[in-house]
């Protein structure tokens, strides 16, 4: 259980250590770095969604003044298949290599075909236009149904569906199937008084981080190479780049810049191996920066999905059975978030019988990447829409219905383990009691409720704490700070060492200066890296006790750490002044040298996080415009280390979810070309679209963490899709099952209902 109860610093809201850098422009992001003699690179990208590359003619391009190197797929080594370790999204190293630079085929519009490094961006652009490529255009598949059709064109001729009892006879566009089942669903549905059955559709959407992908790379003749880039995981960039280029990991140094948003989209690589290869060819450092259009066309958006869901319940609201068929688009290579989707689709509910079957489906679109709680928003959009409809059918309050079926401590999660210390019930109760749930609605307005969930993860982290001679401390860790984690780390170190928050400096170090650490993602940093910081601080404290024992000539177990000081245990009779960290630091030369604490761990015991969202909307029936009137996010965060950044995660995730529900989508033409590859036509919410997002943090401690931290970042995006859709359904009287709920779609639905 959580040990500390009365915290000094945890739970306060100090200014973040890098706050000033961010407001003055001093913070350096991916594209802000320059090396002497640096070249600028640009990509040639496929104009087709699916085609065979017959020939690439570089002659004219190489003649463009200023061009120093051009690379194509031929310049990269063959990479053996193998599961990518530690990344947030599933994937394979061979696929990663082919995604970074196409070899014999292009698999989506925007797939990289060649890259140029030149003395200026303009020269590089000119060379790109001078490259001649011959393609044999192949038919493309652009959605789940056509990809799964009997005679569908194949993206990969050697791909056979995994997860079946036997290897199938023929290749397919379905990379993997998965089934999760318990109990007898036929019997369950037979027992039901009410059955809801519908198909839910969500479009491809993008994480929409404002900073485009960017890196600078320098190849060394001795193979010691440097990469400066914006990433969620510098160690992942190192291992992936090394694998794609066939290099020894120790040869690569990755320096993470500040990162301008990622949300899962910067957990993989697109530019880095190409930049290294161009640098190697040209003998000069190379900078690669994506344009906004390239970010849309050629980074990793989130899966489009098609989910068929059926739920049965008795008149009293108790669920009897649930069934789900979940198709997730993976893009051009296997690895959609189908697996977490299958695992979480029934996670909030205790249902005697269920079956979920999932399909990881390849289509001629960019390979998807993680996006906040990958797979869960789509799955719970379906579940929570159906629960809403069920409540309506039964004439039950939607919160009441959920409380009746909610998982509690001791429930067997649909995805396996027994829940222990979870906050779903508490969130539902808080929602029911919230003033925003009581506010009367006017005609044309509607209210929606939905539950969100994410597993949260631990994984590997390292941290070091150096105690300086004046008793201040420097924390060294390897997770790029994407939303205030330096502040959280400093709070935890300050708490343990009993020194002021301001006396802790947190450094996000490069791969040669910090111990190995997995990505900033999966809501794991405050939990797992935080745990490493706490352990490193405790390592220091135990050294302090040893040193004090030696100074005082007593046994180590006769020394205590109380209120930031080493003291003799009560009843121990020695002449000893209590000594603080600063006192001990001043004595370090006499007591064994510099004080340095460290920890490296594979964190277990991540606590799942539930949320409940309330959303009120007004729908204009004549134009289909939806106004979000109020939005309330309630979430069990476990212990909130820095409540402002917890609220920040909840608000930011809610707004991304609102965008997903109302406006955002990749609009493709019939040839597989995205038509809205820019922020003008891919609409993310602006300030005037939104109400102030209300938040309520609940703190059900996670027993797997010394302070009870759970992990916060993913869950907030899960519930808004259904919360908004349920509100729109309530306002219009029409069940909306396909996102986004754009004005044209709403007007069309209203017109159709008129008959």
């Amino acid at each position, binding site marked *: 259980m959580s040990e500390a109860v009365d915290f000094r610093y945890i739970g306060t809201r100090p200014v973040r250590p890098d706050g000033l850098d961010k407001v003055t*422009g001093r913070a350096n992001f991916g594209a*802000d770095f320059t090396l002497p003699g640096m070249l600028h690179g640009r990509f040639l990208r496929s104009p087709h969604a699916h085609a065979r590359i017959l020939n690439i003619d570089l002659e004219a391009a190489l003649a463009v003044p200023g061009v120093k190197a051009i690379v194509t797929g031929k310049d990269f080594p063959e990479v053996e298949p193998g599961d990518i370790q530690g990344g947030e999204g599933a994937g394979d190293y061979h696929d990663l290599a082919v995604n970074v630079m196409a070899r014999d085929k292009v698999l989506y519009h925007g797939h990289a075909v060649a890259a140029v490094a030149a003395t200026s961006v303009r020269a590089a652009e000119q060379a790109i236009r001078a490259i001649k490529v011959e393609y044999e255009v192949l038919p493309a598949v652009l959605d789940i149904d056509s990809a799964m059709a009997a005679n569908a064109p194949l993206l990969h001729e050697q791909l056979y569906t995994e997860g079946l009892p036997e290897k199938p006879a023929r290749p397919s566009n379905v990379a993997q199937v998965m089934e999760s089942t318990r109990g007898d669903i036929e019997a369950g549905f037979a027992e039901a008084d009410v059955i809801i059955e519908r198909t839910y559709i969500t479009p491809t959407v993008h994480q929409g*981080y*404002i900073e485009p992908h960017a890196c600078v790379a320098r190849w060394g003749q001795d193979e010691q190479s440097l990469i400066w880039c914006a990433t969620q995981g510098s160690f992942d960039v190192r291992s992936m780049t090394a694998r794609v280029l066939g290099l020894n990991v120790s040869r690569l140094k990755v320096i993470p810049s*500040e990162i301008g948003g990622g949300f899962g989209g910067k957990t993989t690589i697109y530019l880095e191996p190409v930049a290294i290869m161009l640098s190697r060819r040209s003998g000069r450092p190379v900078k690669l920066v994506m*344009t906004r259009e390239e970010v849309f066309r050629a980074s990793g958006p989130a899966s489009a999905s098609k989910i068929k869901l059926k739920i049965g319940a008795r008149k009293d609201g108790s669920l009897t059975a649930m069934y789900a068929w979940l198709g997730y688009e993976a893009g051009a290579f296997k690895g959609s978030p189908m697996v977490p989707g299958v695992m979480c689709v029934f996670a909030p509910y205790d249902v005697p019988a269920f079956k979920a079957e999932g399909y990881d489906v390849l289509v001629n679109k960019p390979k998807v990447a993680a996006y906040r709680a990958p797979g869960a928003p789509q799955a719970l959009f379906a579940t929570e829409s159906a629960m809403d409809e069920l409540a309506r059918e039964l004439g039950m309050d939607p919160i009441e219905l959920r409380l009746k079926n909610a998982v509690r401590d001791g429930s067997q999660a649909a995805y396996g383990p027994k829940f222990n210390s979870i906050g779903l019930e508490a969130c539902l109760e808080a929602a029911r009691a919230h003033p925003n749930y009581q506010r009367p609605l006017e005609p044309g307005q509607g209210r929606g409720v939905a539950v969100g969930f994410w597993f949260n993860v631990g994984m590997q982290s390292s941290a070091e704490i150096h105690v300086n001679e004046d008793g201040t401390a420097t924390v060294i860790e390897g997770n790029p700070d994407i939303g205030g984690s330096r502040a959280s780390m400093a709070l935890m170190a300050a708490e343990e060492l009993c020194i002021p928050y301001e006396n802790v400096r947190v450094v996000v170090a490069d791969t040669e200066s910090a111990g190995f650490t997995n990505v900033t993602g999966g809501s794991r940093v405050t939990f797992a890296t935080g745990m490493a910081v706490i352990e490193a601080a405790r390592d220091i404290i135990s050294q302090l006790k040893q040193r004090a024992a030696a100074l005082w000539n007593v046994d180590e177990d006769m020394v205590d750490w109380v209120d930031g000081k080493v003291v003799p245990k009560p009843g121990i009779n020695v002449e000893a002044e209590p000594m603080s960290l600063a006192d001990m630091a001043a004595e370090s030369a006499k007591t064994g040298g510099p004080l340095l604490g460290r920890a490296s761990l594979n964190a277990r015991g991540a606590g799942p996080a539930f949320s409940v969202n309330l959303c009120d909307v007004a729908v204009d029936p004549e134009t289909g415009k939806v106004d979000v009137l109020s939005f309330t996010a309630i979430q069990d965060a476990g212990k909130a280390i820095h409540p402002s950044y917890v609220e920040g995660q909840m*608000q930011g995730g809610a707004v991304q979810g609102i965008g997903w529900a109302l406006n955002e989508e990749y609009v493709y033409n019939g040839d597989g070309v995205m038509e809205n590859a820019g922020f003008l036509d891919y609409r993310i919410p*602006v300030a*005037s679209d939104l109400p102030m997002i209300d938040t309520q943090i609940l703190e059900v401690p996670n027993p797997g963490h010394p302070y009870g931290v759970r992990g916060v970042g993913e869950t907030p995006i899960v519930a808004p899709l259904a919360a908004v859709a349920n509100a729109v359904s309530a306002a219009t009287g029409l069940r909306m099952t396909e996102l986004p709920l754009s004005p044209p779609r709403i007007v*069309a639905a209203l017109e159709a209902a008129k008959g």
Partner: protein
Amino acid sequence: MGSRDDCIRFLLDGEVVEVSGLPATTTVLDWLRDHAGRTGTKEGCAEGDCGACTVLLGEYQGGNAPLRYRTFNSCIRFLPTIDGCELVTVESLVDDGVLHPAQRALVAEHGSQCGFCTPGFVMSLAGLYLEQPAPDREQVVRAIAGNLCRCTGYRPIIDAGLAMGGLEPAKTWHPERVDTPARRAALAKLVRRRTLELPDLVAPRSLDELASWRQAEPDAQLLAGGTDLGLEVTKALRNLPKLIYTGQVPELHVLETAAAGLRIGAAVPLADAWAAIVDAFPGFEEVADRFASPPVCHSGTLGGNVANGSPIGDCMPVLLALDARVELRRGASVRELSLADFYLDYRRTAMAADEFLVAITIPGAQGCWHYAGYKLGKRWDQDISAVCAGFAIQVDAKVIVAARLGFGGMAGIPARAPAAEAALIGATVEGASFEVAADALASDFEPIDDLRASASYRLISAGNLLRRFGLALTSEEQRKPLSVWEVTP
């Protein structure tokens, strides 16, 4: 053509910067980041859509007129267009080591998560601060309409904007302290005596000079605010022909308001043009607000918008409803044309290659007119509309005696709706008349399907807008005030 000069000069952090030898299409952002090493200003899109590149431009307006500071998107603005001005970036704001109140407030309110959008928000808030050091919520939201943040959901940023006013005031960047004699003198020194002429751009300083350049170089491209043209360089990577920049021509900046109507010079920024229109025709009260983000309205010009003739440009339906005319000049001769006759086809106008737009005139209204403007897009601010409409009807004794209905997004060009207008004229002001008019739209337009909306959505919603206009005129309980420029999504 008089004496020339090929050096761009502007003020930055109190010093005159001189730039020569760069392509005229070098954007202010590229100059800052790649040439001046000032990477505090960020690039998120290079298309004027995200606001990460927002900076302030200070303009000396001559005589006793106050210095004017306004935000703009540095990613789509070419460097020669800031000649003679003061450039203010996020690095400029720290004063004797003290942060600007916008910066302090953003730190204190935890307004950054990743922080990439932050410099842009700082500049938008600093620009607002120069107008209103203690803004209200609406002003804050308005000021940041052109800034995207994907991390925070905006709440702490809005809180920071609201908190600025309560903090220790800015030393330099304060409305009462920025306009110093020293700064005025420094800017006055930059006023040109010789025309800026680069190999690929010329910036004439009088209407006559512009007219002769236009005739001498009919293939040259006119550059006004550059909010459209900038995109062609950054996004379509088009190599532009020689540019003739209109921003230095004083005659094109003239904005005349009189009872007889408005005359808006072609280089008048959208922000000022809309302010004048709203002043004269209160029916379009919120038009200026909803038209585009503040930085775009500060750079973009009404003339550029009209001359570009984009079918989805939001100005044109309103100008059509106001019966606007365009004044065109070629050499020494001037002609006038009704705006309705100006557009010929998709992105094609009646303007000859060696002709240019001098001004837009809007006649004053006589009698009892009602106006309304509507914009249907996906979100409130800064959106390309699927449908945009400007309506004007004249009523006499409950009978509609004149009607002008302008639409954007319904055809290849901005256009009036003659059939619907005919249906209204002579009818009484009642719901049924607008029903008939709405149905008549189907014979006026055959809209297209595209990514923004389907043809049927356009037709249905355009009709609904007309019904709504009728309802607002007739109903006792008006659901929405008529003067509101509705942006509906």
